[in-house]
């Protein structure tokens, strides 16, 4: 018996060892790049004639010219592998707002696209456009060479069909309808003209609204959009393993061949949820790009040979972090509490401990590089003053408040640092951690309540006092400020949505929001947004800005010139390249 067992054990060990040894490896195939260098020598004879002296000088010049001839055959197939946080959720991008779907953008083409700062529209399906004098009518000239991934030709009627679908059919998914809020109607007078009318002129229509609708899909293929979408972008869909990876391949018939240059022929996105595993996969050369690098690991990537940290050009980011208060309920309804938190919170400590000192601490919602930023003195940290404010307001110290961290990984650490600093200001922050579904229900949407009243708007109320809130908005002040304090229809009775977790509302501020959105005069807009910031951030204090958040990605040096957009996503539209 013991012999049999011994043999069995040996056999099992051998099988395992053999399996490990001969299993299909993941070694990257090394390919030779074929570039022919042809050196030609050209003899140039320069004849200089000097007149009237009858002397003829003949000078012989030899010029050596190096001509680089790239092989004309098809480029070697290359595969770029990117690690995402989770598996792709929606292939129909009109329904998506998940960061896990970020690489679906490779398949997209919209009427226009945007520059790397997300502040200027660039031609895409439309090669040109005219704007009426009053700024409310846009006529887009559509290219006649745009093909969908199934070979069908894109015409202006398709844009009408897509916009109608986004506005009406899938309005409760994604954010498309919100971007069309100012659009009154649109039409296609002919195959290559697309007309759009706006309710009022707005500086963000071209730079933000329309560029956020890039997912024009073939109406003829709509029945398969959830499983096998057909768009018109530089990459086409190849495969999705639900809950696993997604594959895209270069679309050779894309109209903009320049844009395809240097791009990988295949792009694979794999979900790797754990930060350390993602970084390990990058270090081991198994992936070429990782998104959302945790701040704690930035130095590690920077110091690892062969790896690079991709960042935002000029450090321009529209991502920021703030404290939010339940403005209408509980203890934080009292401005004294909010003000005390403002003085007690140690923003520098949060930046140092949680974000490796990479954030830009401040109190203005806009980054200092922003055109609408106006130098504003921040309230200095003063825990004693915080205590005084609370005592003057009649509170016994310490005052206890319910602190609910956001669902992002760093929020729990941030809550601990915040708790310590608030304690010095006489505030006891009791941390209550919620899972993601509960955070959405209790903090973002609100919990159902009986009748509308002072704490119940639109049938919902909120169950928290304070917490952190990380935003990555479009970089216009409308996106970074107005959008955060949105009401459903601009009235308190309509309830709140968007990112207005605080449920701050002021009818005078609403007028300023509207004014800021409907003038093209930049100086006027700067004045308007200064007034808004002064009123909200320094007077009413429904939020306390902590810091501007730069965003990073990690990549191997095979990836060249890929930039990070202001909201933190890869700027896949750009002229980046990949060499395997």
């Amino acid at each position, binding site marked *: *018996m013991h012999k049999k067992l011994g043999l069995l054990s040996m056999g099992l060990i051998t099988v395992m060892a053999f399996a490990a040894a001969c299993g299909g490896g993941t070694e990257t195939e090394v390919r030779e790049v074929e570039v022919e260098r042809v050196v030609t020598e050209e003899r140039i004879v320069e004849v200089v004639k000097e007149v009237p002296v009858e002397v003829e000088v003949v000078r012989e010049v030899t010029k050596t010219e190096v001509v680089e001839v790239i092989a004309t055959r098809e480029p070697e197939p290359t595969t770029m592998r990117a690690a995402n946080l989770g598996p792709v959720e929606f292939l129909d991008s009109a329904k998506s707002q998940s960061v896990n779907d970020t690489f679906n953008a490779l398949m997209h083409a919209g009427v226009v696209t945007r520059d790397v700062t997300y502040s200027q529209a660039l031609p895409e399906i439309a090669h040109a456009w005219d704007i009426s004098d009053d700024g409310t009518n846009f006529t887009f000239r559509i290219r006649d060479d745009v093909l969908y991934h199934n070979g069908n030709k894109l015409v202006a009627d398709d844009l009408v069909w897509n916009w109608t679908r986004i506005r009406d059919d899938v309005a409760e998914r994604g954010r498309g309808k919100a971007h069309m809020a100012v659009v009154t109607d649109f039409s296609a007078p002919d195959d290559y003209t697309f007309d759009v009318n706006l309710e009022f002129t707005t500086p963000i229509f071209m730079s933000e609204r329309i560029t956020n609708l890039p997912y024009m899909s073939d109406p003829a293929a709509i029945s398969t959009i959830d499983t096998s979408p057909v768009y018109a972008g530089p990459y086409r869909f190849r495969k999705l393993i639900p*809950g696993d990876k997604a594959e895209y391949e270069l679309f050779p018939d894309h109209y903009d061949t320049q844009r395809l240059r240097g791009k990988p022929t295949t792009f694979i996105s794999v979900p790797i949820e754990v930060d350390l595993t993602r970084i390990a996969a990058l270090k081991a050369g*198994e992936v070429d790009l990782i998104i959302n690098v945790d701040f704690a690991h930035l130095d590690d990537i920077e110091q690892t040979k062969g790896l690079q940290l991709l960042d935002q050009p000029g450090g321009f980011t529209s991502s920021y972090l703030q404290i939010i208060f339940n403005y209408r309920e509980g203890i934080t309804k009292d401005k004294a509490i909010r003000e005390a938190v403002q003085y007690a919170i140690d923003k520098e400590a949060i930046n140092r401990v949680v974000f490796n000192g990479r954030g830009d601490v401040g109190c203005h919602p806009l980054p200092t590089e922003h055109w609408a930023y106006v130098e504003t003195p921040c309230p200095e940290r003063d825990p004693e003053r915080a205590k005084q404010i609370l005592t003057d307001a009649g509170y016994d110290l310490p005052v206890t408040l319910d602190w609910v961290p956001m669902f992002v990984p760093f929020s729990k650490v941030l809550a601990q640092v915040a708790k310590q600093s608030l304690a010095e200001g006489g505030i006891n922050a009791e941390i209550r951690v919620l899972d993601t579904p509960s955070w959405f229900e209790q903090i973002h949407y609100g919990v159902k309540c009986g009748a509308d009243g002072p704490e119940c708007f639109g049938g919902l109320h909120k169950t928290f006092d304070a917490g952190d809130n990380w935003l990555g908005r479009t970089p216009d002040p409308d996106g970074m400020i107005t959008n955060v304090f*949105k009401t459903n229809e601009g009235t308190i009775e309509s*309830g709140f*949505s968007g990112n207005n977790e605080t449920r701050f509302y002021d009818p005078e501020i609403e007028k300023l929001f509207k004014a800021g959105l409907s003038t093209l005069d930049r100086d006027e807009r700067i004045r308007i947004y200064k007034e808004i910031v002064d009123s909200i951030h320094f007077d009413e204090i429904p939020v306390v800005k902590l810091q501007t958040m730069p965003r990073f990605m990690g990549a191997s040096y095979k990836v060249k010139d890929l930039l990070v957009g202001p909201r933190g996503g890869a700027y896949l539209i750009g002229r980046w390249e990949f060499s395997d």
Partner: protein
Amino acid sequence: MHAFIARRVLQSLYVLVALSVVIFFLIRFAPGNPSVIRLGFTEDMDAHAARERDEKELGLDKPIYVQYYRWVTHVVRGDFGVTVTLGIGVDVRTLVLEKARRSLPIALAAMLIGIVFSIPLGIIAGTRPNTVIDHAVTAFSLFGVAAPSFWVGLMLILFFAVRLGWFPTSGYGPIEGGFSFHNLVLPASTLGIQLVGGLTRFMRSGMLDVMSSDYIRTAHAKGLKYWAVVMRHALKNALLVVVTVIALTFGGLLTGAVVTETVFAWPGLGQLLVTAIKRLDYGVVQAAVLLAGSSFIFVNLIADIAYGYLDPRIRYQ
């Protein structure tokens, strides 16, 4: 014997029905609302109304017993519905079976590691109690049981994948596609270390019990060689407990590798379950847990029947 088997099968069916009830209601007690997750960060929208419309679309507006009746009547026909968050329109049954298929190698390999290492270690420790070897084996098995698989997994990744480059860090196979044994080694070892820890302790205590039995003393008295007594007479009986534990463990391994699958980005049933729970995808959670529960019940059923054959007394109890 036939009556015994029929009785056990019937009992398993009862358990399966009870399991379906528990799964269905427990997931609905989980905090949060699936529609809220599906809608995400709404913009320019009456969130309350949007949520109610979505709940209606998902059938969540109906009383819970109606929802259960609908689900069960579909499930008995093999229809588990479609996932609402992991690729719209994907059939849940196909998705769960595909993930289970991917979890199977990791479960089998971990089990293999567990058996191959724990039995010899348990024998060595059990036959030499209170020696240095016994203490070393006990310490190792304690480490296996106590060390969190999250930590063990990351350490293995950092050392064997990043530093030595022997194995890939994560995934089911090469990113380009397919399965690779190379990818299996680290996650299976992570899970295997845990199993080795647990099984070694069972094996050791089994050996200790058996080695002090009268029949072993008799065997020694008959002049049999020491290792002949151990391998021919003691091992067989000591293994009984371990075999039972192995059977029970394997049933849970399919979905029990949640942490290991997450650390190694192994796209199996455990990872699917975590993703589905986070997104409150009720259909996927129910199907995954039902499959895991069913496999557990099935393995137990087989073990029960095998016991009935091996020990006739059990049949009459």
